[in-house]
Protein backbone atom coordinates (compact mmCIF):
# COMPACT_ATOMS: atom_id res chain seq x y z
CA UNK A 1 0.00 0.00 0.00
CA UNK A 2 1.28 3.50 -0.84
CA UNK A 3 2.03 5.39 2.37
CA UNK A 4 -0.11 8.51 2.85
CA UNK A 5 2.98 10.57 3.39
CA UNK A 6 6.52 10.05 2.31
CA UNK A 7 9.83 11.78 1.72
CA UNK A 8 12.16 12.12 -1.24
CA UNK A 9 15.82 13.02 -1.49
CA UNK A 10 17.21 16.51 -1.93
CA UNK A 11 20.87 17.44 -1.33
CA UNK A 12 20.44 20.23 1.19
CA UNK A 13 16.87 19.86 2.36
CA UNK A 14 14.03 17.35 2.46
CA UNK A 15 11.32 16.53 -0.07
CA UNK A 16 7.87 15.77 1.31
CA UNK A 17 4.96 13.97 -0.33
CA UNK A 18 1.33 13.92 0.83
CA UNK A 19 -1.32 11.70 -0.71
CA UNK A 20 -5.09 11.47 -0.37
CA UNK A 21 -8.41 10.95 -2.09
CA UNK A 22 -8.84 14.71 -2.51
CA UNK A 23 -6.53 17.70 -2.95
CA UNK A 24 -7.32 18.76 0.59
CA UNK A 25 -6.49 15.31 1.98
CA UNK A 26 -3.17 15.28 0.12
CA UNK A 27 -2.35 18.71 1.58
CA UNK A 28 -3.24 17.50 5.06
CA UNK A 29 -0.89 14.52 4.82
CA UNK A 30 1.85 16.74 3.36
CA UNK A 31 1.49 18.80 6.54
CA UNK A 32 1.82 15.61 8.61
CA UNK A 33 5.04 14.81 6.77
CA UNK A 34 6.44 18.28 7.39
CA UNK A 35 5.62 18.32 11.09
CA UNK A 36 6.99 14.81 11.57
CA UNK A 37 10.40 16.26 10.64
CA UNK A 38 10.12 18.79 13.44
CA UNK A 39 8.39 16.71 16.08
CA UNK A 40 10.71 13.75 16.25
CA UNK A 41 9.30 10.47 17.49
CA UNK A 42 5.85 10.40 19.13
CA UNK A 43 2.73 12.46 18.72
CA UNK A 44 2.39 15.99 20.03
CA UNK A 45 -1.24 15.52 21.15
CA UNK A 46 -4.18 17.75 20.33
CA UNK A 47 -4.75 20.12 23.23
CA UNK A 48 -4.82 23.38 21.24
CA UNK A 49 -6.50 24.42 18.01
CA UNK A 50 -5.92 27.17 15.44
CA UNK A 51 -7.97 28.12 12.40
CA UNK A 52 -7.16 30.41 9.49
CA UNK A 53 -8.11 31.23 5.94
CA UNK A 54 -6.22 32.18 2.85
CA UNK A 55 -6.99 32.90 -0.78
CA UNK A 56 -5.10 31.28 -3.63
CA UNK A 57 -6.28 30.35 -7.11
CA UNK A 58 -3.14 28.42 -8.08
CA UNK A 59 -3.35 24.97 -6.51
CA UNK A 60 0.44 24.51 -6.36
CA UNK A 61 1.00 27.87 -4.70
CA UNK A 62 -1.87 26.94 -2.37
CA UNK A 63 0.18 23.95 -1.14
CA UNK A 64 3.18 26.17 -0.39
CA UNK A 65 0.96 28.80 1.24
CA UNK A 66 -0.80 26.15 3.37
CA UNK A 67 2.44 24.64 4.61
CA UNK A 68 4.11 27.99 5.28
CA UNK A 69 1.06 29.33 7.05
CA UNK A 70 1.08 26.28 9.31
CA UNK A 71 4.77 26.86 10.12
CA UNK A 72 4.05 30.49 10.98
CA UNK A 73 1.03 29.60 13.14
CA UNK A 74 3.01 26.88 14.91
CA UNK A 75 5.90 29.21 15.66
CA UNK A 76 3.84 32.20 16.70
CA UNK A 77 1.56 30.14 18.98
CA UNK A 78 4.39 27.93 20.25
CA UNK A 79 2.55 24.80 19.11
CA UNK A 80 3.65 21.54 17.53
CA UNK A 81 0.80 20.43 15.29
CA UNK A 82 -0.18 16.81 14.81
CA UNK A 83 -3.56 16.92 13.07
CA UNK A 84 -4.80 18.99 10.15
CA UNK A 85 -8.01 19.83 8.30
CA UNK A 86 -8.28 21.81 5.08
CA UNK A 87 -11.39 22.75 3.12
CA UNK A 88 -11.37 24.34 -0.34
CA UNK A 89 -14.14 26.61 -1.51
CA UNK A 90 -13.09 27.92 -4.90
CA UNK A 91 -10.10 30.18 -4.32
CA UNK A 92 -10.69 30.26 -0.58
CA UNK A 93 -9.04 27.74 1.69
CA UNK A 94 -10.03 27.20 5.32
CA UNK A 95 -7.36 25.53 7.41
CA UNK A 96 -7.35 24.09 10.91
CA UNK A 97 -4.62 22.46 12.97
CA UNK A 98 -4.45 20.79 16.36
CA UNK A 99 -1.37 20.44 18.52
CA UNK A 100 0.35 20.91 21.84
CA UNK A 101 2.96 23.31 23.26
CA UNK A 102 6.13 22.35 21.47
CA UNK A 103 8.68 22.64 24.21
CA UNK A 104 7.86 19.11 25.32
CA UNK A 105 7.39 17.62 21.90
CA UNK A 106 10.12 19.06 19.74
CA UNK A 107 12.96 17.09 21.29
CA UNK A 108 14.54 15.03 18.58
CA UNK A 109 13.26 16.99 15.61
CA UNK A 110 14.75 19.45 13.15
CA UNK A 111 13.32 22.88 12.40
CA UNK A 112 11.67 23.42 9.01
CA UNK A 113 12.26 27.00 7.86
CA UNK A 114 9.80 27.02 5.00
CA UNK A 115 8.17 25.18 2.11
CA UNK A 116 9.71 26.02 -1.27
CA UNK A 117 8.62 25.99 -4.90
CA UNK A 118 11.28 23.39 -5.66
CA UNK A 119 9.91 20.17 -7.16
CA UNK A 120 6.49 21.57 -6.38
CA UNK A 121 3.63 19.61 -7.88
CA UNK A 122 0.00 18.79 -7.14
CA UNK A 123 -1.51 16.18 -9.41
CA UNK A 124 -3.84 13.21 -9.63
CA UNK A 125 -2.12 9.86 -10.08
CA UNK A 126 -4.18 6.69 -10.49
CA UNK A 127 -7.22 8.19 -8.85
CA UNK A 128 -5.27 9.58 -5.91
CA UNK A 129 -4.00 13.12 -5.34
CA UNK A 130 -0.34 13.67 -4.65
CA UNK A 131 1.16 16.92 -3.33
CA UNK A 132 4.92 17.36 -3.12
CA UNK A 133 7.60 19.98 -2.59
CA UNK A 134 10.97 20.50 -0.94
CA UNK A 135 11.04 22.03 2.54
CA UNK A 136 14.05 24.03 3.72
CA UNK A 137 15.60 22.74 6.96
Amino acid at each position, binding site marked *: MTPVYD*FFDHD*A*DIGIVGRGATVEAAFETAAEAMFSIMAGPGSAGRVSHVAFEFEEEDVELALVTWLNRLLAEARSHGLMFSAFKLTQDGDRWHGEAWGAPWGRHAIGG*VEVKGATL*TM*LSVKAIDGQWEARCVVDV
Partner: protein
Amino acid sequence: MDLSRLKRLDPYCWSLPAGEGRAPALLYGSEPLLSTMDDKVLEQISNVAALPGLVGPAMTMPDAHWGYGFPIGGVAAFDAEQGGIISAGGVGFDISCGIRFLRSNLTLDDIAPELSRLADQLYRDIPAGVGEEGNLKLSPEELDRVMLKGAQWALDRGYGVPEDLPYIEEHGRIGGAVPDKVSPLAKKRQRGEMGTLGSGNHYLEVQVVEKIYDPLAAAAFGLHQGQVVVSIHCGSRGLGHQIGTDYLVSLAKAASRLGIRLPDRELACAPIKSPEGQEYLGAMNAAINVALTNRQILTHLARQAFSHVIYGAELETVYDVSHNTCKLETHQVDGQKRRLHIHRKGATRAFPPGHPAIPERYRETGQPVIIGGSMGTGSYVLAGLAGNPAYASASHGAGRAMSRNQALKHWHGRELIDQLKHQGILIRTRSMRGAAEEAPGAYKDVDLVAEATEKAGLAKRVAFLRPKACVKG
Protein backbone atom coordinates in the same frame (compact mmCIF):
# COMPACT_ATOMS: atom_id res chain seq x y z
CA MET B 1 27.69 15.77 -12.34
CA ASP B 2 28.16 14.99 -16.01
CA LEU B 3 31.28 17.00 -16.85
CA SER B 4 30.96 16.36 -20.58
CA ARG B 5 28.74 19.46 -20.93
CA LEU B 6 31.47 21.61 -19.38
CA LYS B 7 34.64 23.08 -20.79
CA ARG B 8 37.63 22.91 -18.46
CA LEU B 9 39.23 26.38 -18.43
CA ASP B 10 41.80 25.36 -15.82
CA PRO B 11 41.96 22.67 -13.12
CA TYR B 12 39.71 24.75 -10.82
CA CYS B 13 37.36 26.53 -13.22
CA TRP B 14 34.84 24.98 -15.61
CA SER B 15 32.58 26.73 -18.08
CA LEU B 16 29.08 25.98 -19.27
CA PRO B 17 29.03 27.90 -22.56
CA ALA B 18 26.21 30.33 -23.30
CA GLY B 19 23.10 28.78 -24.80
CA GLU B 20 19.90 30.05 -26.33
CA GLY B 21 18.64 32.87 -24.15
CA ARG B 22 21.22 32.06 -21.52
CA ALA B 23 24.53 33.56 -20.45
CA PRO B 24 27.47 31.27 -19.64
CA ALA B 25 28.02 29.81 -16.21
CA LEU B 26 31.32 29.22 -14.42
CA LEU B 27 31.71 26.42 -11.92
CA TYR B 28 34.68 26.71 -9.58
CA GLY B 29 36.16 23.58 -8.09
CA SER B 30 38.40 20.63 -8.80
CA GLU B 31 37.35 17.64 -10.89
CA PRO B 32 36.89 15.41 -7.81
CA LEU B 33 34.53 18.01 -6.28
CA LEU B 34 32.53 18.69 -9.43
CA SER B 35 32.23 15.09 -10.50
CA THR B 36 30.49 14.21 -7.24
CA MET B 37 28.05 17.13 -7.37
CA ASP B 38 24.45 16.40 -8.31
CA ASP B 39 23.48 17.25 -11.92
CA LYS B 40 20.84 19.50 -10.42
CA VAL B 41 23.59 21.99 -9.53
CA LEU B 42 24.33 22.42 -13.23
CA GLU B 43 20.65 22.62 -14.08
CA GLN B 44 20.02 25.24 -11.41
CA ILE B 45 22.98 27.48 -12.26
CA SER B 46 22.09 27.14 -15.95
CA ASN B 47 18.61 28.45 -15.09
CA VAL B 48 20.09 31.35 -13.10
CA ALA B 49 22.15 32.25 -16.17
CA ALA B 50 18.89 32.81 -18.08
CA LEU B 51 17.53 35.45 -15.69
CA PRO B 52 17.09 39.03 -16.95
CA GLY B 53 19.74 41.64 -16.29
CA LEU B 54 22.49 39.18 -15.36
CA VAL B 55 25.96 40.71 -15.64
CA GLY B 56 28.74 38.31 -16.55
CA PRO B 57 28.37 34.60 -15.93
CA ALA B 58 26.34 32.91 -13.20
CA MET B 59 28.76 31.10 -10.89
CA THR B 60 29.02 28.31 -8.35
CA MET B 61 31.59 27.98 -5.59
CA PRO B 62 33.58 24.78 -4.89
CA ASP B 63 31.17 23.76 -2.09
CA ALA B 64 28.07 24.03 -4.31
CA HIS B 65 25.16 21.67 -3.92
CA TRP B 66 21.57 21.40 -5.04
CA GLY B 67 19.38 24.05 -3.42
CA TYR B 68 16.04 25.67 -4.22
CA GLY B 69 15.95 28.38 -6.86
CA PHE B 70 19.66 29.06 -6.93
CA PRO B 71 22.05 26.25 -6.04
CA ILE B 72 23.68 26.57 -2.64
CA GLY B 73 27.03 28.15 -3.42
CA GLY B 74 25.50 30.22 -6.22
CA VAL B 75 26.69 33.74 -7.08
CA ALA B 76 25.03 36.05 -9.62
CA ALA B 77 25.21 39.80 -10.28
CA PHE B 78 22.34 41.88 -11.65
CA ASP B 79 22.19 45.46 -12.87
CA ALA B 80 19.03 47.26 -11.79
CA GLU B 81 19.44 49.74 -14.65
CA GLN B 82 19.32 46.91 -17.20
CA GLY B 83 16.18 45.22 -15.89
CA GLY B 84 18.13 43.11 -13.42
CA ILE B 85 16.10 41.04 -11.00
CA ILE B 86 16.13 40.20 -7.33
CA SER B 87 15.17 36.67 -6.31
CA ALA B 88 14.09 35.35 -2.91
CA GLY B 89 15.36 31.94 -4.03
CA GLY B 90 18.72 33.59 -4.70
CA VAL B 91 19.03 34.58 -1.07
CA GLY B 92 17.36 31.72 0.77
CA PHE B 93 14.89 31.49 3.63
CA ASP B 94 17.57 32.00 6.23
CA ILE B 95 18.37 35.55 5.17
CA SER B 96 21.86 36.66 6.24
CA CYS B 97 22.75 33.31 7.70
CA GLY B 98 26.45 33.64 8.46
CA ILE B 99 29.29 33.08 10.87
CA ARG B 100 30.56 35.16 13.78
CA PHE B 101 34.17 34.15 14.37
CA LEU B 102 35.78 34.88 17.75
CA ARG B 103 39.34 34.48 19.00
CA SER B 104 40.13 33.82 22.65
CA ASN B 105 43.05 34.47 24.96
CA LEU B 106 43.10 30.73 25.74
CA THR B 107 44.97 27.71 24.46
CA LEU B 108 43.76 24.16 24.21
CA ASP B 109 45.77 23.35 27.36
CA ASP B 110 43.82 26.03 29.24
CA ILE B 111 40.41 24.59 28.40
CA ALA B 112 41.16 20.87 28.12
CA PRO B 113 40.40 20.07 31.80
CA GLU B 114 37.19 22.10 31.64
CA LEU B 115 36.02 21.20 28.14
CA SER B 116 33.07 19.11 29.27
CA ARG B 117 31.91 21.79 31.74
CA LEU B 118 32.34 24.45 29.06
CA ALA B 119 30.27 22.46 26.56
CA ASP B 120 27.55 21.96 29.18
CA GLN B 121 27.54 25.65 30.09
CA LEU B 122 27.30 26.74 26.46
CA TYR B 123 24.48 24.24 25.93
CA ARG B 124 22.63 25.70 28.95
CA ASP B 125 23.16 29.33 27.96
CA ILE B 126 22.65 29.21 24.18
CA PRO B 127 19.02 28.52 23.24
CA ALA B 128 19.18 25.93 20.44
CA GLY B 129 16.87 23.53 18.67
CA VAL B 130 13.27 23.41 17.48
CA GLY B 131 10.95 25.68 19.45
CA GLU B 132 13.61 27.04 21.82
CA GLU B 133 13.14 30.69 22.72
CA GLY B 134 15.53 33.19 24.22
CA ASN B 135 15.06 35.38 27.28
CA LEU B 136 14.30 38.44 25.14
CA LYS B 137 10.66 38.93 24.18
CA LEU B 138 10.36 41.77 21.71
CA SER B 139 7.25 43.70 20.73
CA PRO B 140 6.72 44.49 17.04
CA GLU B 141 7.78 48.09 17.73
CA GLU B 142 11.03 46.97 19.38
CA LEU B 143 11.70 44.60 16.50
CA ASP B 144 11.30 47.54 14.12
CA ARG B 145 14.12 49.23 16.02
CA VAL B 146 16.28 46.09 15.72
CA MET B 147 15.63 46.03 11.98
CA LEU B 148 16.78 49.64 11.65
CA LYS B 149 19.70 49.68 14.11
CA GLY B 150 21.19 46.20 13.70
CA ALA B 151 23.94 45.12 16.10
CA GLN B 152 24.04 48.57 17.70
CA TRP B 153 20.62 47.76 19.18
CA ALA B 154 22.19 44.83 21.01
CA LEU B 155 25.12 46.93 22.20
CA ASP B 156 22.74 49.55 23.57
CA ARG B 157 21.28 46.83 25.79
CA GLY B 158 24.60 45.55 27.01
CA TYR B 159 25.06 42.67 24.59
CA GLY B 160 28.67 43.01 23.51
CA VAL B 161 31.32 45.69 23.41
CA PRO B 162 31.83 48.62 21.00
CA GLU B 163 34.99 46.92 19.69
CA ASP B 164 32.75 44.28 18.07
CA LEU B 165 31.14 46.66 15.60
CA PRO B 166 34.06 47.42 13.24
CA TYR B 167 34.53 43.69 12.75
CA ILE B 168 30.97 43.01 11.63
CA GLU B 169 30.27 43.51 7.94
CA GLU B 170 28.43 46.79 7.35
CA HIS B 171 29.50 47.73 10.90
CA GLY B 172 26.56 45.67 12.11
CA ARG B 173 23.90 47.64 10.27
CA ILE B 174 22.97 47.66 6.61
CA GLY B 175 21.05 50.62 5.18
CA GLY B 176 17.83 50.27 3.22
CA ALA B 177 15.92 48.28 5.80
CA VAL B 178 12.17 48.90 5.61
CA PRO B 179 10.38 47.31 8.58
CA ASP B 180 6.98 48.25 7.11
CA LYS B 181 7.64 45.71 4.36
CA VAL B 182 8.00 42.95 6.95
CA SER B 183 4.67 41.26 7.66
CA PRO B 184 3.08 41.26 11.13
CA LEU B 185 3.34 37.44 11.03
CA ALA B 186 7.12 37.67 10.53
CA LYS B 187 7.42 39.97 13.55
CA LYS B 188 5.19 37.66 15.57
CA ARG B 189 7.39 34.67 14.72
CA GLN B 190 10.48 36.56 15.88
CA ARG B 191 9.00 37.64 19.21
CA GLY B 192 10.97 35.13 21.30
CA GLU B 193 13.70 34.20 18.81
CA MET B 194 16.30 36.93 19.27
CA GLY B 195 19.43 35.34 20.71
CA THR B 196 18.65 31.81 19.54
CA LEU B 197 20.76 29.49 17.43
CA GLY B 198 18.06 27.61 15.56
CA SER B 199 18.37 24.10 14.19
CA GLY B 200 19.57 22.14 11.15
CA ASN B 201 23.15 23.03 10.22
CA HIS B 202 23.41 25.86 12.76
CA TYR B 203 25.94 25.54 15.54
CA LEU B 204 28.19 27.14 18.09
CA GLU B 205 31.57 25.46 17.98
CA VAL B 206 34.62 25.70 20.19
CA GLN B 207 37.66 25.08 17.99
CA VAL B 208 41.42 25.10 18.20
CA VAL B 209 43.76 26.59 15.60
CA GLU B 210 45.58 23.50 14.42
CA LYS B 211 47.53 24.75 11.43
CA ILE B 212 48.63 28.11 10.14
CA TYR B 213 48.97 28.47 6.36
CA ASP B 214 49.68 32.20 6.18
CA PRO B 215 51.53 33.55 9.23
CA LEU B 216 51.19 37.22 8.23
CA ALA B 217 47.45 37.06 7.70
CA ALA B 218 47.05 34.92 10.83
CA ALA B 219 48.89 37.57 12.83
CA ALA B 220 46.60 40.27 11.45
CA PHE B 221 43.58 38.16 12.40
CA GLY B 222 45.09 37.65 15.89
CA LEU B 223 45.40 33.88 15.42
CA HIS B 224 48.15 31.50 16.51
CA GLN B 225 48.58 27.73 16.63
CA GLY B 226 46.97 26.07 19.65
CA GLN B 227 44.63 29.01 20.26
CA VAL B 228 41.00 28.44 21.18
CA VAL B 229 38.48 30.12 18.87
CA VAL B 230 34.69 30.06 18.53
CA SER B 231 32.41 30.02 15.48
CA ILE B 232 28.71 30.86 15.71
CA HIS B 233 26.68 29.85 12.65
CA CYS B 234 23.09 31.10 12.45
CA GLY B 235 20.87 33.68 10.76
CA SER B 236 17.75 35.80 10.98
CA ARG B 237 15.59 33.07 12.53
CA GLY B 238 11.80 33.09 12.18
CA LEU B 239 11.62 36.64 10.88
CA GLY B 240 13.88 35.87 7.94
CA HIS B 241 12.12 32.57 7.28
CA GLN B 242 8.74 34.33 7.14
CA ILE B 243 10.06 37.08 4.85
CA GLY B 244 11.37 34.37 2.53
CA THR B 245 7.99 32.66 2.70
CA ASP B 246 5.97 35.83 2.12
CA TYR B 247 8.01 37.01 -0.84
CA LEU B 248 8.57 33.65 -2.52
CA VAL B 249 4.92 33.54 -3.54
CA SER B 250 4.54 37.28 -4.19
CA LEU B 251 7.66 37.34 -6.40
CA ALA B 252 6.45 34.25 -8.28
CA LYS B 253 3.24 36.11 -9.05
CA ALA B 254 5.13 39.28 -9.95
CA ALA B 255 7.30 37.36 -12.42
CA SER B 256 4.21 35.94 -14.04
CA ARG B 257 2.44 39.33 -14.13
CA LEU B 258 5.49 41.10 -15.58
CA GLY B 259 6.01 38.47 -18.25
CA ILE B 260 9.40 37.32 -16.97
CA ARG B 261 10.04 33.92 -18.49
CA LEU B 262 11.32 31.68 -15.74
CA PRO B 263 13.06 28.43 -16.66
CA ASP B 264 11.75 27.16 -13.34
CA ARG B 265 9.11 28.56 -11.04
CA GLU B 266 11.43 28.24 -8.04
CA LEU B 267 13.45 31.19 -9.43
CA ALA B 268 10.61 33.52 -8.34
CA CYS B 269 11.89 37.03 -8.90
CA ALA B 270 11.01 40.58 -9.89
CA PRO B 271 12.94 43.46 -11.42
CA ILE B 272 14.92 45.23 -8.72
CA LYS B 273 13.23 48.49 -9.65
CA SER B 274 9.70 47.06 -9.57
CA PRO B 275 7.49 47.69 -6.50
CA GLU B 276 7.73 43.99 -5.59
CA GLY B 277 11.52 44.02 -5.98
CA GLN B 278 11.89 47.12 -3.84
CA GLU B 279 9.60 45.71 -1.17
CA TYR B 280 11.58 42.49 -0.96
CA LEU B 281 14.85 44.43 -0.87
CA GLY B 282 13.60 46.54 2.06
CA ALA B 283 12.38 43.48 3.96
CA MET B 284 15.54 41.49 3.22
CA ASN B 285 17.76 44.31 4.49
CA ALA B 286 15.65 44.41 7.65
CA ALA B 287 16.29 40.68 8.08
CA ILE B 288 20.05 41.20 7.57
CA ASN B 289 20.06 43.58 10.53
CA VAL B 290 18.12 41.07 12.60
CA ALA B 291 20.68 38.36 11.79
CA LEU B 292 23.62 40.61 12.69
CA THR B 293 21.87 41.50 15.97
CA ASN B 294 21.14 37.86 16.68
CA ARG B 295 24.78 36.87 16.31
CA GLN B 296 25.78 39.85 18.47
CA ILE B 297 23.53 38.61 21.29
CA LEU B 298 24.82 35.05 20.91
CA THR B 299 28.38 36.39 21.09
CA HIS B 300 27.53 37.97 24.43
CA LEU B 301 25.98 34.71 25.70
CA ALA B 302 29.08 32.79 24.61
CA ARG B 303 31.31 35.24 26.47
CA GLN B 304 29.21 34.80 29.61
CA ALA B 305 29.43 31.02 29.37
CA PHE B 306 33.21 31.09 28.88
CA SER B 307 33.68 33.49 31.80
CA HIS B 308 31.49 31.32 34.01
CA VAL B 309 33.70 28.27 33.45
CA ILE B 310 37.18 29.75 32.86
CA TYR B 311 38.35 32.69 34.92
CA GLY B 312 39.74 35.51 32.79
CA ALA B 313 38.47 34.09 29.48
CA GLU B 314 38.10 36.71 26.77
CA LEU B 315 36.51 36.43 23.34
CA GLU B 316 37.15 39.08 20.68
CA THR B 317 35.38 39.35 17.35
CA VAL B 318 37.66 38.50 14.43
CA TYR B 319 34.88 38.97 11.88
CA ASP B 320 31.19 38.43 11.23
CA VAL B 321 30.17 37.73 7.66
CA SER B 322 26.93 36.52 6.07
CA HIS B 323 26.55 34.02 3.26
CA ASN B 324 22.85 34.36 2.27
CA THR B 325 22.34 37.88 0.95
CA CYS B 326 21.76 40.16 -1.99
CA LYS B 327 23.88 43.30 -1.68
CA LEU B 328 24.45 46.39 -3.78
CA GLU B 329 28.20 46.60 -4.38
CA THR B 330 30.65 48.25 -6.73
CA HIS B 331 32.64 45.92 -8.99
CA GLN B 332 34.88 46.30 -12.00
CA VAL B 333 33.33 44.77 -15.12
CA ASP B 334 35.25 45.00 -18.38
CA GLY B 335 37.32 47.84 -16.96
CA GLN B 336 34.31 49.83 -15.76
CA LYS B 337 33.01 50.35 -12.24
CA ARG B 338 29.40 49.23 -11.95
CA ARG B 339 26.87 49.14 -9.13
CA LEU B 340 25.52 45.61 -9.05
CA HIS B 341 23.19 43.58 -6.86
CA ILE B 342 25.22 40.52 -5.93
CA HIS B 343 23.21 37.46 -4.93
CA ARG B 344 25.23 35.14 -2.70
CA LYS B 345 23.28 32.04 -1.77
CA GLY B 346 25.56 29.96 0.42
CA ALA B 347 28.57 32.00 -0.66
CA THR B 348 30.71 34.30 1.46
CA ARG B 349 31.67 37.84 0.53
CA ALA B 350 35.47 37.95 0.25
CA PHE B 351 36.70 41.50 -0.23
CA PRO B 352 40.36 41.84 -1.28
CA PRO B 353 43.22 43.67 0.44
CA GLY B 354 42.74 47.41 0.33
CA HIS B 355 38.97 47.34 0.04
CA PRO B 356 37.50 50.31 1.93
CA ALA B 357 34.67 48.24 3.44
CA ILE B 358 36.96 46.02 5.50
CA PRO B 359 38.48 47.05 8.85
CA GLU B 360 41.81 48.91 8.85
CA ARG B 361 43.39 45.96 10.64
CA TYR B 362 42.74 43.68 7.65
CA ARG B 363 43.46 46.17 4.85
CA GLU B 364 46.74 44.46 3.93
CA THR B 365 45.52 40.88 4.26
CA GLY B 366 42.01 40.96 2.86
CA GLN B 367 38.70 40.23 4.54
CA PRO B 368 38.49 37.16 6.79
CA VAL B 369 36.45 34.42 5.13
CA ILE B 370 35.16 31.46 7.14
CA ILE B 371 34.50 28.05 5.59
CA GLY B 372 32.49 26.25 8.25
CA GLY B 373 33.09 22.52 7.98
CA SER B 374 31.29 19.63 9.63
CA MET B 375 31.37 18.99 13.37
CA GLY B 376 33.79 16.11 12.99
CA THR B 377 36.37 17.43 10.55
CA GLY B 378 37.19 21.10 10.79
CA SER B 379 36.83 24.59 9.39
CA TYR B 380 39.06 27.05 7.58
CA VAL B 381 39.81 30.72 7.93
CA LEU B 382 40.79 32.33 4.65
CA ALA B 383 41.47 35.86 3.43
CA GLY B 384 40.04 37.69 0.43
CA LEU B 385 42.29 37.91 -2.64
CA ALA B 386 42.88 40.65 -5.17
CA GLY B 387 41.57 39.67 -8.58
CA ASN B 388 38.86 37.35 -7.25
CA PRO B 389 36.94 36.46 -10.43
CA ALA B 390 33.57 35.87 -8.71
CA TYR B 391 32.50 39.35 -7.61
CA ALA B 392 34.57 38.92 -4.43
CA SER B 393 32.86 35.70 -3.39
CA ALA B 394 34.14 32.45 -1.93
CA SER B 395 32.95 29.15 -0.48
CA HIS B 396 30.94 29.19 2.75
CA GLY B 397 31.13 25.62 4.04
CA ALA B 398 32.01 22.05 3.23
CA GLY B 399 28.80 21.62 1.25
CA ARG B 400 26.58 18.59 1.54
CA ALA B 401 27.58 15.48 -0.34
CA MET B 402 24.63 13.36 0.80
CA SER B 403 20.95 14.12 1.35
CA ARG B 404 19.51 14.26 4.86
CA ASN B 405 17.38 11.19 4.19
CA GLN B 406 20.43 9.22 3.11
CA ALA B 407 22.36 10.44 6.14
CA LEU B 408 19.60 9.17 8.43
CA LYS B 409 19.97 5.73 6.85
CA HIS B 410 23.74 5.73 7.36
CA TRP B 411 24.13 7.08 10.89
CA HIS B 412 22.40 7.06 14.26
CA GLY B 413 22.71 10.23 16.30
CA ARG B 414 23.69 8.64 19.63
CA GLU B 415 26.35 6.39 18.08
CA LEU B 416 27.76 9.28 16.11
CA ILE B 417 28.00 11.50 19.18
CA ASP B 418 29.76 8.71 21.10
CA GLN B 419 32.15 8.17 18.21
CA LEU B 420 32.99 11.89 18.06
CA LYS B 421 33.52 11.95 21.83
CA HIS B 422 36.04 9.16 21.37
CA GLN B 423 37.81 11.47 18.89
CA GLY B 424 37.87 14.26 21.48
CA ILE B 425 34.91 16.24 20.10
CA LEU B 426 32.01 16.89 22.47
CA ILE B 427 28.55 17.35 20.95
CA ARG B 428 25.65 18.85 22.87
CA THR B 429 22.24 18.60 21.18
CA ARG B 430 18.63 17.70 21.91
CA SER B 431 18.14 16.24 18.45
CA MET B 432 19.59 12.84 17.61
CA ARG B 433 17.96 13.16 14.20
CA GLY B 434 19.71 16.49 13.66
CA ALA B 435 23.06 14.99 14.71
CA ALA B 436 22.70 12.12 12.25
CA GLU B 437 21.70 14.44 9.41
CA GLU B 438 24.78 16.55 10.11
CA ALA B 439 27.18 13.61 10.23
CA PRO B 440 30.66 14.54 8.98
CA GLY B 441 30.39 11.85 6.30
CA ALA B 442 27.35 13.62 4.81
CA TYR B 443 29.57 16.54 3.80
CA LYS B 444 32.21 17.03 1.14
CA ASP B 445 35.87 16.90 2.11
CA VAL B 446 36.41 20.39 3.55
CA ASP B 447 40.13 20.17 2.80
CA LEU B 448 39.36 19.79 -0.91
CA VAL B 449 36.89 22.67 -0.78
CA ALA B 450 39.39 25.01 0.93
CA GLU B 451 42.17 23.99 -1.43
CA ALA B 452 39.96 24.53 -4.49
CA THR B 453 38.83 27.89 -3.10
CA GLU B 454 42.45 28.99 -2.92
CA LYS B 455 43.56 27.47 -6.22
CA ALA B 456 40.60 29.07 -8.01
CA GLY B 457 41.78 32.46 -6.77
CA LEU B 458 38.71 33.07 -4.59
CA ALA B 459 40.45 33.33 -1.19
CA LYS B 460 43.71 32.12 0.36
CA ARG B 461 43.94 29.73 3.28
CA VAL B 462 45.08 31.30 6.56
CA ALA B 463 44.36 28.69 9.23
CA PHE B 464 42.72 25.32 9.83
CA LEU B 465 40.47 24.93 12.88
CA ARG B 466 39.78 21.60 14.60
CA PRO B 467 36.45 21.25 16.48
CA LYS B 468 36.56 20.45 20.21
CA ALA B 469 32.99 21.08 21.37
CA CYS B 470 29.84 21.80 19.42
CA VAL B 471 26.36 22.95 20.45
CA LYS B 472 23.98 21.87 17.69
CA GLY B 473 20.44 23.07 17.21
